[in-house]
């Protein structure tokens, strides 16, 4: 995708036309946190509300039929995007809920065994059993497992990280062993940008009979993901990071597993038969979608998928890869900049974290913001990775299809300005606060 194509792509995002901080054009480099939304997605959501709005799976009238059809068609479109079938796709409010849904399936199964009920043994955790994550997990894929370990007595273990921002795979076979019941790994790190060898890890997990969960929040929106090729058992991601609406997340799971999982959130529309004494549950995916679902958001997300498909996810991926290479080339040679994460444009996605010598990330972010450059600063909900690399906070620039090389240039210029402002650059001016 050439620069002019990226600009054409960008034109479809109304927010990106706005200015910030007194008329400065917005350079949005925070798509890792959330992406902007193209007009077609906003239109699709609105059209649902204006024409078909109704509670799905609950009515006999025409609107209810239309809403149900829109919701289920959206499910099919979104499932298709990752090579899955609709019955394997559960809608949640965000990836965080998706991951919790899986963790709670372990907890609830374990509690059911303790009550003498028959459950699938793969979801039962006992003291001595092990859960494996990595040191680069987003809190959404760490804390649910910490909680699960604490509640069941299982042990939480994790892949360490190498100095160049990769998973330390050297002890793969020790880490994932006969005691391992579940492995949950981020596909692309939101803080380091690293793309992890999840297929290899899944292979090892399956060798020892463990289940494999993949946090694909930062991969599904940016690179082709195919459930079969990936070899995972569960894949979780959010709609809002892939040009879709807020308030919707996805969980893909193998049918065979979804079928044996107890429900997480219980209530209406997820039941078969209810009496005051007890209830039985519907088949997946309904079993995991209690209550009136976010149908309008599902429709919006399906439209986002169509929007991506129009350009092709491969083309988007290639564009972002090129942009990342361009940015790495510039940042790698900038004085006073330390990239936290892989410095090479290999197996890495379009998120680059860095520190600036002598200036706190938040102060850098402030100066960038003043120049219209929106980045994220902080621990990026991946505090352990920060601890591993001895920083409390990083500055992160993350790209999406609408970013251009000009955006990278603006970033680099703004970083220079920040260094000057705080008097830390090799070529810094004295008394930076006098302005220039």
């Amino acid at each position: 995708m050439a620069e002019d194509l990226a600009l054409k792509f960008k034109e479809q995002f109304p927010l990106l036309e706005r200015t910030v901080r007194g008329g400065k054009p917005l350079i949005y480099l925070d798509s890792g946190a959330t992406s902007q939304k193209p007009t077609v997605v906003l239109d699709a959501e609105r059209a649902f509300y204006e024409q078909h709005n109704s509670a799905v799976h609950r009515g006999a009238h025409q609107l209810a039929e239309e809403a149900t059809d829109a919701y289920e068609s959206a499910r099919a479109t979104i499932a298709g995007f990752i090579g899955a079938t609709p019955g394997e796709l559960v809608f949640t409010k965000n990836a965080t809920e998706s991951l919790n849904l899986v963790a709670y399936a372990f907890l609830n199964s374990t509690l059911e065994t303790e009550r003498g009920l028959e459950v699938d043994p793969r979801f039962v955790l006992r003291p001595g059993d092990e859960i494996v994550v990595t040191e680069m997990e987003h809190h959404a894929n760490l804390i649910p497992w910490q909680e699960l370990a604490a509640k069941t007595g299982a042990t939480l273990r994790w892949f360490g990280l190498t100095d160049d921002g990769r998973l330390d795979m050297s002890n793969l076979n020790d880490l994932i062993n006969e005691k391992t019941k579940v492995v949950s790994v981020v596909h692309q790190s939101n803080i380091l940008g690293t793309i992890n060898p999840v297929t290899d890890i899944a292979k090892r997990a399956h060798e020892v009979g463990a289940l494999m969960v993949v946090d694909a929040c930062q991969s599904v929106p940016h690179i082709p993901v195919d459930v079969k090729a990936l070899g995972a058992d569960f894949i979780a991601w959010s709609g809002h990071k892939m040009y879709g609406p807020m308030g919707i997340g996805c969980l893909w799971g193998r049918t065979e597993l979804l079928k044996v999982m107890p429900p997480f959130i219980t209530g209406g529309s997820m039941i078969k038969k209810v009496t005051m004494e007890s209830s039985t549950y519907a088949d997946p995916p309904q079993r995991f979608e209690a209550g009136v679902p976010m149908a309008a958001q599902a429709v919006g997300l399906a439209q986002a998928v169509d929007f991506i498909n129009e350009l092709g996810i491969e083309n988007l991926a290639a564009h972002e890869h090129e942009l990342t290479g361009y940015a790495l080339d510039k940042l790698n040679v900038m004085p006073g900049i330390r990239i936290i994460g892989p410095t090479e444009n290999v197996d890495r996605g379009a998120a680059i974290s860095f520190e600036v010598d002598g200036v706190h990330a938040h102060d850098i972010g402030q100066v960038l913001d003043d120049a219209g450059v929106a980045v994220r600063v902080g621990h990026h909900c991946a505090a352990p990775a920060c601890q591993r690399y001895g920083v409390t906070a990083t500055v992160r620039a993350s790209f999406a299809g609408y970013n251009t090389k000009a955006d990278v240039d603006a970033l680099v210029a703004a970083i220079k300005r920040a260094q000057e402002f705080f008097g830390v650059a090799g070529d810094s001016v004295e008394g930076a606060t006098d302005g220039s």
Partner: protein
Amino acid sequence: MDLESMYQEVILDHYRSPHGKGELDPFDAEVFHVNPTCGDEVTLRVKLSDDADPLVEGLGHVGQGCSISQASASVLFDQVNGQPLSEAMPIVDEFSMLMYSATSDVDIATLDDEKLGDAIAFEGVAKYPARIKCALLSWMAFREAVETAQASKTN
């Protein structure tokens, strides 16, 4: 008018005097199916003969539900009772295809009118997604009952 395309006279007739209604005894298998959207239920029993190609020797259904579900259970009885499974099961397949004809690319012209018999009257129902489950309720129960009965015989 749309309503008449769903509530064909023959459907209403089956609804008013359903065939095969009642508890079959003796029986080889009993299954219980619920339509979760409405809570309606059917309990269906079958008895199979011991032939190589077993005959549906008996079929009985009890439960409650809407006119569509009651009528379709009655038509099911007419079409499969007394038939060998080699003939009965394709009828179930045909009926499923008929019910999904409006929402998939099944071509109605390819369906076998003879197998379907009165069941062809449910074509109009297929246009109402919320009612497809009503029509299929007893047919799906029948399919499972046959599988259960066969499994119990071979064990």
